[in-house]
């Protein structure tokens, strides 16, 4: 894994900010520290990230879609058919 300094250089951010990010990932178990060697990606990292994105990011996006649909008075059937249409289009490509 990149060090905080390499990350700072890559994204033009303060290394302290990069370190903070790395620590957050470590807290969640996505990264782990090896003393004197730096940060490493844990074996279950992919699962954890997928789980997090499914449960938090995707859920939140769906919530917003539903809220917006309510505001525009779009019926449930209409919304579902829109999603299905998009899915088939993506699948074809």
């Amino acid at each position, binding site marked *: 894994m990149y060090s905080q300094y390499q990350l*700072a*250089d890559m994204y*033009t951010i*303060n290394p302290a*900010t990069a370190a*903070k990010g790395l620590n957050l990932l470590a807290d969640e178990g996505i990264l782990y520290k090896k003393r004197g060697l730096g940060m490493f990606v844990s074996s279950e990292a992919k699962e954890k990230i997928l789980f997090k994105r499914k449960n938090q990011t995707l859920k939140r996006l769906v919530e917003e879609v539903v809220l917006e649909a309510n505001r525009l008075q779009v019926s449930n059937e209409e919304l579902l058919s829109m999603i299905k249409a998009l899915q088939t289009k993506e699948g074809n490509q």
Partner: protein
Amino acid sequence: MKIIECRDISKMYFRQKALEQLTFSIEENKITGLIGRNGAGKTTLLKLISGFIKPTAGEIKVFSEQPFNNLFVSANSILVDDSMSFPAALNLGDIMDAAAAFYSNWHQPLAEGLLDYFSLEKYKYHNRLSKGQTSTFNMIIGLASRCPLTLFDEPTIGMDAAVRKDFYRALLKDYLAFPRTIVLSSHHLEEIEHLLEDVLLIKNGQCLLHLPIYDVKEMMISVEGKLAIADQVLQEKEIIYEQSIGTNHVHRVLLREEASVEELQGAERMGLKIRPVNASDACVYLTDKGKGVIDDVFNKN
């Protein structure tokens, strides 16, 4: 180790207070953003740190020494601003040679590389540069000096967007290569917030907050929606900023610690838009002059 320590410093210019009982300290090798509105006292503070001026009251220590009239502090610090003066007889190359003689950490390859990159020529004269070029050159001097304490006062005045971006990247890269204590003053935080570790916010010569940038980003939330709902949800909460949108919509900002996560989720379900407030806006809200918003001026008429 603390590089700068200020305790209750005040500075008066004739009868006008520029700084009032300012207390803070800056740790070694951190990039600190000195943020404040025009006239908040940023320049005065930097001049005090450089030892150009004396505090009217209070104690200021830089490298554990009084900076005024101090050769040691002068040798280890540099203040870069748009009024840096250089002899008219010296061209840019000569000025760089002089800086190299004075600052023993001076890194000539960096200076020459930057000079070349920004298309400044060595035989040109400082007083014939454009405003942006002047800032660029001063910045090069500030970076290549590699002083343990480097102070930038509004370093990007006159620079175009591309040069500003290059400058920030150059600053960060050289900081990574050669860590040092940097204070960067600016009135627009959004442009520099990615570079900063800490933010020192001053208003009317007083220190409003001194926090890591991360905490400033997390500090506030904004709530937007129908006036009636907002009133109901935000009862008894301290509002930092409020702006009316139309007759029955409102935009309010409050500290994150004022509301719990459950309360916010509840508010969202009731149709309010909850958003985090970025560091730059947070600072604007904090340094508000207390005279309401600009709209009020127009609403009176």
